[in-house]
């Protein structure tokens, strides 16, 4: 099953897990699977009208899915999906 990597700031909404396996054939299915397993994540990943938030990017392996086929991008069992939010710390 494809693996979704959860970044530290969002792990608290995903049962504190660093990665979640989901059964999915596309990026959209994978993210849907993730938020149905962890409903609290939905608000952090999507706006109220269902769009991915502007400070969250989704990568399939090392490619930004915005430059692939977005939600329709197909994923294989061996793929790594990463959620990459902006972080700001530095002091």
């Amino acid at each position, binding site marked *: 099953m494809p693996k979704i990597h959860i*970044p530290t700031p969002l792990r608290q909404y995903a049962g504190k897990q660093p990665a979640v396996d989901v059964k999915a054939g596309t990026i959209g299915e994978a993210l849907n699977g993730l938020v149905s397993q962890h409903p609290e994540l939905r608000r952090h990943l999507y706006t109220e009208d269902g769009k991915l938030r502007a400070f969250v990017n989704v990568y399939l392996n090392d490619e930004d899915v915005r430059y692939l086929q977005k939600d329709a991008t197909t994923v294989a069992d061996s793929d790594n999906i990463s959620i990459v939010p902006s*972080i700001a*710390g*530095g*002091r």
Partner: protein
Amino acid sequence: MAAITELKPEVANLSNDEILRYSRHLIMPEVGMEGQIKLKAAKVLCIGAGGLGSPLTLYLAAAGVGTLGMVDFDVVDYTNLQRQIIHSTADVGRKKLDSAEEKLKAINPFLAIRKFETRLSSENALEIFEDFDIIADGTDNFPTRYLVNDACVLTGKPNVYGSIFRFEGQASVFATEEGPCYRCLYPEPPPPGLVPSCAEGGVLGILPGLVGVIQATETIKLILRSGDPLIGRLLLIDALGMKFRELKLRKNPDCPVCGKHPTVTELIDYNEFCGIRGEEAPVEAGVPEIQVEDLKRRLDSGEDLFVLDVREPHEYQICNINGHLIPLGELPKRVHELDSSREIVAHCRSGVRSAKAVNFLRQAGFKKVHNLAGGILAWADRVDPSMPKY
């Protein structure tokens, strides 16, 4: 890439003392005399003299960068010392700029330092950036990061970016002519409340060391024009797994600031929601509050008050006032542990999370809930000075 300042005759040679100092650079072909003179002519501006700024400026100073600008308005406090290695215990209470200048000058007396004791804003950013070739972003908040990025795009100067959260870091080089900018990656900053606040966040002390040294490396490569800079690549650093991953970044043609039809054409001051000094956001209005002195008096007189601590278990271990621990995130599913007929006082570290808890409980039908104003920090300040603060 933005033009690096043309070499002026007065910096176009090295003294014998400088040659000795930089000999390990001079004997390697990738730097050599030519590279060392480029370093000497370079003017690098570092935003923030904290966790990232410490290793970054220490290494740039040692390497022979000629002019370092630093923007900071903070003073050193005890909680900085776990990671901000440019400052020492004796510096607590001093301006960070003064403390940093002393250390940097001690390492390299040939260094010229320009101190900007101010908060970077839309008013001053372009003017401050003007005299520098490269900007290194070592700030700790989203508004300043967007400001730095936009000012870099507008002035055509590369933005050597690094940021950290707990044990994860990100690094890249943004806003070069050919490469993407920060807004290509993240068009807008997150709205308040959707990212953990700074005080809830925490950071592994060595992490800014790792990331700041990567920023220093990239800065030096840009000056030398050698190697493959992190342009169009986002480096993800996981210190816990000690894994470095790399993601591809593309210049977004629809980018609001560096795209073909930019909508951001001047600098924006986003509202601060995660205190620049690492404070939490202000408490929401309209939440019923109780002061620490009142709580103490009422507990001492034996009143039936239920103290609810909504912090995390690891915070409870640092200090507590014997409250019943239910972390804010677990409150919805553990609300049955609470008796709505009793009077409840909720507290956290500073009062922000417990205000959310109070709002939640009131919506859930609890009538007698109060927020402890100022949280356990206020308790430590005003009721029990022996209690540790964090």
